[in-house]
């Protein structure tokens, strides 16, 4: 009855929508990696899933942007993109878990936004379609503003993640926490197509060694230098906060040029939290 699974996975649309554009060896490695994560999650008999995710002007616009948005809906619909090659699905929510996260955060003077209704775009539907393809695990999405400045700092993402990890560990359910987004990519921007593999490898190393200090020291500008989409890695840093002391294993990494994205998949080992401050 605790945190039973933690992983991270990139969500480039090409992963599903134009999968065969990728070199077969890269596609195979990434699909095998996703299957590894799915099996891990299934073996952990997960009751609920918390997803640190990002979005692409689906729910939010310049009229209202909050740094974090905790979904407290009974269910969600997605994907919004008709071209994604994922049929419209209904994803169950976990509103009482969302309430618990919000209460714990506000009790610690962290004040994420919340929403009773959210539509899921590829950023959320791609990880779910790989990890919980039956859409039978209730989800709490936590959407981080990775789209428009000012984005939340790595330290604030880590701090919110820490609260989420505390809630997951004391929850009387088997909880998974997954981060999605990144790695280097610059969608719609001038460097679209450029993949900063050296940056991606450095970031994977930080997540593999559980280097909380170095992860929190990353600035949004440093992430954004690897492309606007690399700012989505704030979700991975939130996951690091949830895990506390941890190590990670790179399940797959491929710089997929036809998808214009450095694709990373990791799974994590962590303590029960009793030795974290």
């Amino acid at each position, binding site marked *: 009855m605790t945190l039973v699974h933690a992983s991270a996975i990139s969500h480039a649309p090409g992963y599903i929508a134009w999968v065969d554009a990728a070199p077969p060896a890269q596609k195979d490695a990434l699909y095998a990696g996703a299957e590894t994560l799915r099996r891990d999650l299934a073996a952990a008999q997960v009751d609920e899933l918390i997803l640190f995710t990002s979005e*692409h*002007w689906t729910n939010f*616009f*310049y*009229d209202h942007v909050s740094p974090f948005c905790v979904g407290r809906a009974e269910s969600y619909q997605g994907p919004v993109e008709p071209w994604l090659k994922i049929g419209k699905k209904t994803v169950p929510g976990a509103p009482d878990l969302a309430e618990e996260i919000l209460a714990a955060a506000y009790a610690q003077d962290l004040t994420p936004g919340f929403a009773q209704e959210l539509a899921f775009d590829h950023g959320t539907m791609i990880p779910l379609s790989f990890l919980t393809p039956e859409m039978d695990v209730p989800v709490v999405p936590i959407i981080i503003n990775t*789209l*428009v400045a000012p984005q939340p700092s790595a330290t604030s993402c880590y701090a919110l993640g820490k609260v989420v990890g505390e809630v997951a560990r004391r929850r009387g359910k088997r909880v998974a926490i997954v981060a999605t987004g990144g790695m280097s990519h*610059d*969608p*719609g*921007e*001038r460097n*679209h*197509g450029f993949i900063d593999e050296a940056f991606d490898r450095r970031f994977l190393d930080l997540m593999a060694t559980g280097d909380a200090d170095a992860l929190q020291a990353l600035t949004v500008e440093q992430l954004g230098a690897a492309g*606007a989409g690399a700012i989505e890695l704030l979700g991975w840093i939130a996951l690091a906060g949830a895990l506390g002391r941890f190590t990670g294993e790179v399940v797959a990494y491929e710089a997929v040029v036809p998808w214009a994205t450095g694709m990373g998949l990791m799974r994590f080992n962590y303590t029960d939290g009793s030795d974290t401050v």
Partner: protein
Amino acid sequence: MSLYVLQKLIRDINRNPAIRERFTAEPDALLADYDLTPQESAALAARDYRGLYALGVHGLLLRPFSIIHQVSEPDYLFAIRGDPE
């Protein structure tokens, strides 16, 4: 300073089939409903991707807008990159 309004209209065109239809059928009337500068209106009416990007339109609004208008990825990137470095 109506970059906000410009982006709002682009998002509406991207997401709302009725507004998308109006943008095709009667663009001048549609644009008149939004408080845009002449420069913004002209760039949008001409689907001047380079101009719209230079005005500050977010890539994840502008690229979907270009896809709706059948602009290939290389053409889009050529447009927004401007003069080669």
